[in-house]
């Protein structure tokens, strides 16, 4: 498989909440192929706003991305 690199806009969910593009949410689902941690890193205010449940894909693997989290 040859991956096709493409530049895409990335936004913190907290920024979208602050600008009114997303409202306070009740449930958050995240399934972004290993990019879940950066998504959660950018959602602290959103979660504090009253999220009642989260569904996320995850795994038990180790990675240099997560070393500081341990």
């Amino acid at each position, binding site marked *: 498989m040859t991956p096709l690199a493409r530049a895409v806009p990335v936004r913190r969910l907290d920024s979208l909440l602050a600008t009114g593009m997303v409202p306070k949410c009740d449930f958050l689902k995240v399934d972004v192929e290993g990019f879940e941690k950066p998504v959660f890193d950018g959602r602290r205010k959103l979660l504090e706003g009253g999220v009642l449940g989260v569904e996320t894909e995850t795994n*038990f*693997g*180790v*990675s*240099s991305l997560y*070393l500081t989290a*341990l």
Partner: protein
Amino acid sequence: MDLYFNKGAKFTKWVTAAGLLQEPFVLVDVGVQGGEHRHWHLLGDHLVVHGFDALEEAVTQLRRRNALRSNRHYHAVAAGNVNDERTFYVNAANPTASSMFRQRASRFDVHMREEPRQVQVRRLDTLLMQGIIPRADFLKVDVERFETDVLLGARQLIAAGVLGVETESNFGISADLPNGHFSAVSAILVDHGLLVFDLAFNRVPRASFQRALAAKGLSPVSVHEGIGKPSTLNVLFCRDAIQEIDEAESYPAPPRPLGLDQLIKLIVIYELHGLNDIAVDTVDRFATLLGGRLDVSRAIKLLADPACRDESLDTALGRRVRELEQSTSWRITAPMRALKRALQRITRMA
């Protein structure tokens, strides 16, 4: 909920029968009440067990049962993260639920009758340093929420070469473990290159749900019906010899390199838990090193067993069938089913 046990384990049986290990396989079993798991017995005389339990009567029984075995050592000591004396709460109704922690009122209708008792607590690292226990290959910990203390007191033992750990855990949080029990256990073990390789868990429905069913005239659901959030986990952590080489940068610190005996023992651990795909992959990857001790082609043939986890399905289905057959509704309707079968036979004959 037990982890899967691959009874076939042809590679392990071959290793044992042919004497392919030059060192003993050392199991340290913390919470050994009732004895070590039978899957270790496939290692025959290669197996050395050091079992620990705070419940003295359980240790006395194990010593008596294994009096003729020089490679079984049972210690009436609680493993922990201090060398001291501590109160242990014995659950007389269910000794396996005895704990270092006082039992709380439960939402699961489990009634406790506990007797506080003073017991000796020792760090496994201290016992290793004193020569009371040797370096271990496998560590099993099942001590009713005291697991993190045991692991924190065993960091040198683990670093000295533990290849696998089986521990009981849960996803609950507490004042001591604000990130949760599983996260705490995992953080300690990942530091030593031990990653999750398997897990088994049960679900326990809450008592108010059972009472609501009873109020509707329905039978309570059993723990096998999958209602309730995950309750108790049994988790297998292992070294991953291949990943340690291919993705060394993923580890907090480079795990200690594995010797030939350790590699064979690691493959045995994989196979005993039905992880034969990983076992084959490991033999294939380290064929040159393993070839110095064993016939690599034969090892792969023995491990390439498609039935290495089949039994889990049989066991699960068998359990459900037995449960159904023993249920009140099944027994009450048995005469009606017999009558229906008889009528069907008569209809066919006519």
